[in-house]
Every structure is written in C-alpha cells, then in structure tokens.
C-alpha cells in the first residue's frame, strides 16, 4: 500500500475538507521524526503515513531511515523516520545517520518524539536540537504509560518553556495524531524556533566569546551551535571551522581548558551536565508525580526476577531460542507439506529436462516457483512470527544482558545477540542490524559471525540433504560444528582485528504485552521483503539452470570445477554447477541438485559421507549474493571479499578433511 493513498489520522473524509481546496502548496516539505530509541517513533511514523514500519521493543529497531508521505490539508509532507539517538555526540552508525540528517540535510521541521515516562533524559536531546536552532515540534508520547506510573505532564507549560508546540500523543492507539498532523502542517509554514536555553554563567560567557570570534555563517550552522560544539571539541565541527577560521579553534581550546579547570571534568561532560541541569529545571516545573501510597512491584520487575535470574534466566533463554528453532521447523514442515500437496494438484513438478524449449523454460519457472513457496516461505513465516513476539515483549534485551559475559569471549557484547538471533532467519537483515553496535571493530566482528550463523536457507539444506537422507543426528552434528566454529573464529578474529572493544551500555525497556496487529504486521513486512528477493531469484535461477542444462552449457563449468569438487571434496561432478547456483541463494543448491540429477531422492546419487560433506560445504562457502552486497555496503569491497574468501577456504578445507574422515566411519 502506498502512502499517498492513505490519510492517516483522519479516517473520516468529512474531517478533511481541505484536500481539494484551492491554493494547494505544490512544494513538498521534509519533516524528520527524531528522538531517543524506543520512544515510539516508528509507531508515530506508521500513524502519520500509513506505511508499515517495523515496531519492536528493543533500542535500535530502526537502523536505516524510513520514508513515507503525509498528505494532509493540501500539503505533501515527506516524513523521515530516523534511527533512535540519545545524543548528538553520536557513537553508533545508526545514531550518526540521525545526526547527519538533522544537522546537514536541514529538514523543514524536526518532530522530536519524547517518552513521557522518562522526560528528563529525553529533554536532554531536545535541548541539543534547540542548540541547533532547527524548527521544532515536541510530541510527548506514551502518555498512557506515564499516567499509569502516576506521572502527569503539563504540555502547555512545557510549550511555553521551550517556545515550540508540544503535543501529547499515544501513538500506538492513534491518539493525538490529528493534533500532531495539524501542528506539522502549520509548522512547515511558521517554522517555530525554540527559545535559546541558557546554561551556567561560566559556560555562557565562553560560548559568547567564541560566537564573537566565529565568522558569520561558518559551516552553515547557527553560531551558538558551532560555539558549543567547539567547546566540546567535536571533531566534525573542529574540522569544518578549521578550514575557514583556524585561530578560533585555538581560542576555543583555551576556553575548554578553563572550563575543565573549573569543573574538573572534560568540557564535553560539563556541557552534558549543564543540559541535564536545564532539563531538570524544566521537568520540575511541568511534571507532577502522584504515587498511590505503597509502591507495588511492577510487572516488569516481576518478570525480570525470572528472566534475569542466574538459573531460571538461562533456562528461559535456552527454552526460548530452542523453542524458536523447533517451532520454526515443526510449523514450517507442516506448512511446506500442505503447500506441496496443494501445488502438486495444479501442475506436476517435473525437474526432468526434456521436451521443447518453451516447455523446458516453463518447467524451470514452475519448479522455481514451487521450490520458493515450499522451501523458504513456510519456514520464514513462523520464525519471524515467534521472533516478533520475543522482540515486541522486550525479552530480547534481557537475553543481551544475560549473554553479555559470554559474548565478551568473542570480543563482542550482549547487544550482538540481536543480530546473531536474527541471523537464524536471514543473514541480510541481520547484517544490517549490526549497526546498533558502537565500535567499528565489534560491528564488523558481529557481521562476520552473522554470516556463519545457519540461516533458514542453510538449515533447509542441512535438513533436506542430511536429516532426510542420512539421519537427524548428523544434521545436528553439523549445526553443533557450526556453533563451535563461530565461537572459535570469533575468538581468533577478536585477537587479529585491529581496533578496540567497548563494553555494553544498553537501555532496558519495560515489558509490553504484545500488540497483535504490530506483531503480525512486522512478520508480514519481513516476509514480504524476503519474498521480493526470493521469488524472482528462484524463478529466474531455475529457468537459467534448466535452460543452460538443456543447451549443454553446464558441462564446461562442471569440468572446470572438477579438481575442487571431485578431487578435493570427493563429490559427484554435477555439484560444481550446483555450488555456483548456490551463490545466488543457498537453498538453490537443493533445487539445482534436483533439477540436474533428475531426482529428489538424493541418496541415490550420493553416499552418506558425500551428502554430509555437500551440506557442510553449502553451509560454509561463499555467503549468498545478497549478503555479499550488504557487506560491501557496510564495510567496503575489501572486507566483503575478505570474508567471502575466508569462508570459501574454510569450506574447502573442512570439506577435504571431512570426506576422508567420514569415509572411514560411514
């Protein structure tokens, strides 16, 4: 569904008579949604634009900015949902995306979404936006949850203090969205600028002195912002100002030293302290807390007593992750069989290649279509559904906390568990989610390990080849081998890679009762984006395989690869082409194998040892094309190729050894 067709916040046409009004402003405005992680930016975005954006209950959900369109009162307003950001002094990639967009791209209005329950911490970021002097609207979200905690906020008064509109909202229920849309429409014209919030005397004096030194309009930023950033020693600002006015840098460094002497802390920390003092002052004026007598233990605390318990917590963790995988494959197998029977009724699947050219091509397309519907989608849907539940409730952050220590052994920290678990579904989104990790070294390390996690595609190869035709224990052994390999490679890479590892600092959200439409919506979003990759790749890939085979193009490739496939790995000749196609998507190896051998009973063409080695190599060698592209985008060609060649070498090395050892046992 396209955003243009929806007018969120006004389901009733009569409420919006302005759509067709004369004098429509042709200009398209840009409005950014920004704020701390996990405050409801994505929920607000969905309500404003009608575009489904994943909503999860872990900080760092939105890792790339999302765009949608709000058409309201004759205005076209492009809404940008930015990743969560705690401070302009950005650390992680996701935060840098937000910082860059707000500071460099100058959106017409920034809608700062704040969590009513933690106003003080949220206002810290608001004050940084005020320093930037960008037109601002404040949406105080999750008013209901705050009210449950006895917190009442006078949004009128807050609006007076900040000098910008303040709208109370409950985004998940759509409350306050009309008021927010109205405020956005007026704000793109009025451009409400926040008041200048003054800090302590010793700080203000120095800000003023630097502002006087700055050449007008240096770097295109407001002078007060530049002055503050220079005091803080912000690298980007220092670098930009240095080009125009190098002497200002020296002066601001002197002032920063003076501040450090007065306060006994680095100037950056002094500034943050000042912002918090200002935030405290505001909160004390606008917030009232009424607690009802005796403090009862919150639901979150009750659950945490189990979820973070030294014994029960780990038990819960094993049960959940184990349950996730078992549930995925039980439900997946059931759905897969159901679809297979259904499709077999429509047209028989004939991987055998014969007949006229159109017939061959149709056969290929049909086989690819059936394979994608029966091999991947049945497994992906239950996986993402269960995962959405773990995310939405908030359990994922608890697993991060419980596993933090263990992850240290691989140079990672607890947050990395999020991409690793996502990796069981599909490697591509899992690699993207590594952006939540702050240090570049750890981010790369996590992405490297994610490419080794058995994703659903690899699991299907292992199950489809080994569990079916050898036995389930060898399939589990392959899994176990993969986990051990991940831990060992993690430890080695941690030592070898340059850069430092930083410990975890992570917000712990309250538990939510899962919001069913949200969970279903998220499952569907993720599945849909995969179908877009899987379906065309399958159909096209399958047509190419059968077509090329029928025309005899595949023999040369097999012959070329035979030294590796036949001599080293001891596999049948036709696996050369199979592995080439597996690069598109790993489960295509199954498809190609079936198409080329003319049978789906793989035990007739390979011995048990060969089947195990085939699955082992398919599991480890070259990550699929989509994964390689993500790695290139995130880390550049050199590192992407490094991972690819390392993993291929490992696959060949282990495969060569395994075929010889397994030959002795099986």
């Amino acid at each position, binding site marked *: 569904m396209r955003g243009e067709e929806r007018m969120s916040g006004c389901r009733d046409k009569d409420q919006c008579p302005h759509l067709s009004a004369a004098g429509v402003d042709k200009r398209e405005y840009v409005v950014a949604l920004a704020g701390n992680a996990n405050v409801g930016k994505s929920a607000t975005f969905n309500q404003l634009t009608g575009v489904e954006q994943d909503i999860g209950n872990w900080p760092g959900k939105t890792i790339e900015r999302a765009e949608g369109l709000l058409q309201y009162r004759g205005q076209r307003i492009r809404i940008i949902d930015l990743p969560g950001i*705690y*401070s302009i*002094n950005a*650390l992680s990639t996701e935060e840098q995306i937000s910082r860059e967009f707000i500071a460099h791209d100058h959106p017409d209005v920034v809608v700062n979404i704040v969590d009513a*329950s*933690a*106003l*003080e*911490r949220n206002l*810290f970021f608001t004050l940084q936006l005020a320093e930037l002097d960008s037109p601002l609207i404040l949406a105080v979200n999750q008013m209901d949850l705050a009210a449950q905690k006895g917190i009442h906020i006078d949004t009128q008064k807050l609006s007076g203090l900040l000098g910008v509109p303040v709208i109370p909202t409950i985004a998940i229920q759509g409350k306050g969205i009309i008021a927010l849309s109205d405020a956005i429409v007026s704000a793109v014209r009025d451009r409400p600028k926040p008041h200048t919030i003054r800090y302590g005397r010793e700080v203000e004096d120095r800000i003023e002195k630097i502002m006087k030194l700055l050449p007008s309009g240096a770097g295109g930023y407001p002078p007060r912002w530049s002055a503050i950033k220079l005091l803080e020693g912000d690298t980007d600002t220092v670098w930009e100002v240095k080009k125009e006015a190098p002497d200002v840098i020296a002066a601001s460094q002197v002032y920063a030293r003076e501040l*450090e*002497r007065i*306060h*006994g*802390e*680095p100037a*950056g*920390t002094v500034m*943050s*302290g000042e912002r*918090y003092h200002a935030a405290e002052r505001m909160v004390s004026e606008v917030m009232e807390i009424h607690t009802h007598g005796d403090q009862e233990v919150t639901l979150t605390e009750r659950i*945490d007593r189990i979820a*973070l318990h*030294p014994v029960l*917590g*780990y038990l819960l963790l094993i049960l959940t992750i184990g349950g996730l995988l078992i549930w995925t494959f039980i439900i997946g197998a059931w759905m897969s069989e159901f679809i297979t029977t259904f499709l077999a009724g429509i047209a028989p699947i004939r991987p055998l290649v014969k007949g006229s050219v159109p017939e061959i091509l149709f056969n290929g397309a049909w086989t690819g279509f059936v394979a994608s519907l029966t091999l991947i989608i049945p497994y992906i849907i239950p996986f993402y559904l269960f995962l959405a539940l773990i995310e939405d409730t908030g359990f994922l*952050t608890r697993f*991060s*906390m*419980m596993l*933090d*220590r263990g992850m240290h052994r691989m140079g990672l*920290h*607890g947050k990395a568990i999020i991409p690793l678990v996502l990796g069981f579904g599909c490697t591509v989104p899992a690699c993207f989610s590594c952006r939540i990790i702050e240090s570049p070294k750890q981010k790369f390390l996590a992405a490297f390990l994610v490419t080794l996690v058995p994703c659903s595609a690899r699991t299907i190869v292992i199950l489809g080849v080994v569990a079916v035709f050898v036995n389930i224990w060898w399939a589990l052994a392959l899994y176990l081998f993969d986990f051990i390999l991940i831990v060992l490679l993690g430890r080695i890479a941690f030592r070898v890679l340059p850069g430092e590892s*930083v*410990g*975890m*600092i*992570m*917000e*712990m959200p309250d538990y939510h009762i899962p919001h069913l439409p949200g969970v279903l919506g998220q499952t569907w979003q993720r599945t849909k984006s995969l179908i877009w990759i899987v379906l065309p790749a399958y159909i096209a890939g399958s047509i190419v395989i059968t077509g090329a085979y029928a025309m005899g193009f595949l023999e040369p490739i097999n012959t070329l690869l035979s030294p590796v496939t036949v001599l080293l790995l001891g596999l049948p000749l036709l696996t050369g082409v199979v592995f080439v196609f597996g690069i598109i998507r790993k489960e295509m190896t199954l498809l190609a194998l079936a198409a080329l051998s003319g049978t789906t009973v793989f035990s007739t063409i390979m011995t048990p040892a060969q089947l195990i080695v085939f699955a082992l190599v398919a599991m480890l060698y070259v990550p699929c094309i989509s994964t390689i592209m993500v790695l290139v985008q995130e880390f550049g060609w050199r590192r992407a190729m490094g991972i690819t060649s390392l993993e291929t070498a490992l696959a060949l090395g282990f495969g060569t050894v395994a075929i010889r050892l397994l030959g002795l046992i099986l």
Partner: protein
Amino acid sequence: MASEQLEEYLESILDIEEKEGIAKTSAIARCMKVAPASVTEALQTLSDKGFVHYEPYKGAYLTDQGREMARKVKRRHRLLEVFLSDVLHITGENVHDEACRMEHTLSDETERALCKMLNAPARCPHGSLIEACDRDVESCSACLKENPLAPTCTRDEHLVPVTSLRPGQKGTIAFIRGDSSVVQRLTDLGLTLKTDILLIRKAPLLGPVEISVRKTRLAIDHVIADHIFVTACAEKSG
C-alpha cells in the same frame, strides 16, 4: 609485632572477608602461610588495637578503622604493582613480592604522587580494581590537573564503585573514570555528577549491572560500571 606484619594480616582478612563473610583463623593461616597459633596471637594484637573484632573459634572481621587501613594498604599495593610492571618493567612473581615489601613504607604524599604519575590507573596488572583514594577532589582528572600538590582534606564518605552496591541500594555519582568517549556516553544518558543512581541487579558471572537513573533503566558492562564511583546511601531497612 611489627606494623608491617599487622598490615599484611589486615589485607588478608579483607580478602577473606570479601569472599567468605568472616575470616576464620584457619583461612588466615592458609592465606598467610603461617601456623594457626601465630594467627591467633596476631588477631589478639589487632583486636587490642581496635582493628578487628575477634571471636575465638569463630574468626575475625574488620572494624571500620581496620577496613580503612586495609583498603589503604591494598590501594598502595596495587598502585605499586602498576608502577613496578608498567614503568620499571619488572616481571612475574617479583611484582607482587616487591609491592608487598614496599607498600608498608609509602607515605600519603608519595602515594598521591604515584597515582598522579600513573594517570590514576583503574586496575592492577593482575586485573584487580584499584579503589578511589579518600581525597576530597571532584574527580581523578581534577586531581591530575592540580599542580603543585595542594594539601587537601579527606572525604567524609567512602566511595565505592557502583558494582559494590547491593541490589536495591542507592548511591550518588561522585565521579566516573575511564575512556573519554565512554564517560561522555554515560553522561549523555544522564549519569551526571551528583545524580542519584539505584542498582537494580547484577547479572550472573560478572555480567552487566542493571541500574536506574533518571527513570531510565540501563544495562552497563561490568568493567564500565566498575569505574562509576558513588557515595553509597544507607540501605533501606526491611
């Protein structure tokens, strides 16, 4: 008995107490590698001087005075270890043994100067935490900048890392030590000086600690949390 020996006893008792709650005579004897009879005698002397509470057959625990003394010596011991290994490049066993002999003769002034010279290290070469000193300064960086060493009064309260709070115990942030970007991150998340902080729980196996600050709960890596020093508030009764 020489004061050196008494200080060694205090250190051992502190170690054992932290692990086992009360220091039994037998445990002290094992730790110091001496006969239990000598331990009994030493405990008697320490008890007379008001450093420990000693109950025959049960063991000993430190008095406030004794604890302060023991911590001071421990701090000196670990500072000296850093000096010996990082500056003088002494290796192996010798680091500990030398530090053991030197720690008893170090004056307050030398200790301060040593701490400054070593840039207020957080841990000894063996990885144990070096506790904050008892000087009345805002933070280590304030002390490092101070020049020349001015005589200062000592703090009223004892500073502890947030990791030593008990679950449910509150403290007020006194200062944060560590890498500047981490300190900045913590400050931006609301851990500014003099802010109240509540330890909610410690994850098992030296995992992260969960704290609450400004109505936000954060999970913080154990090592980072070791560097957040707080003035502990009295524990809630009941």
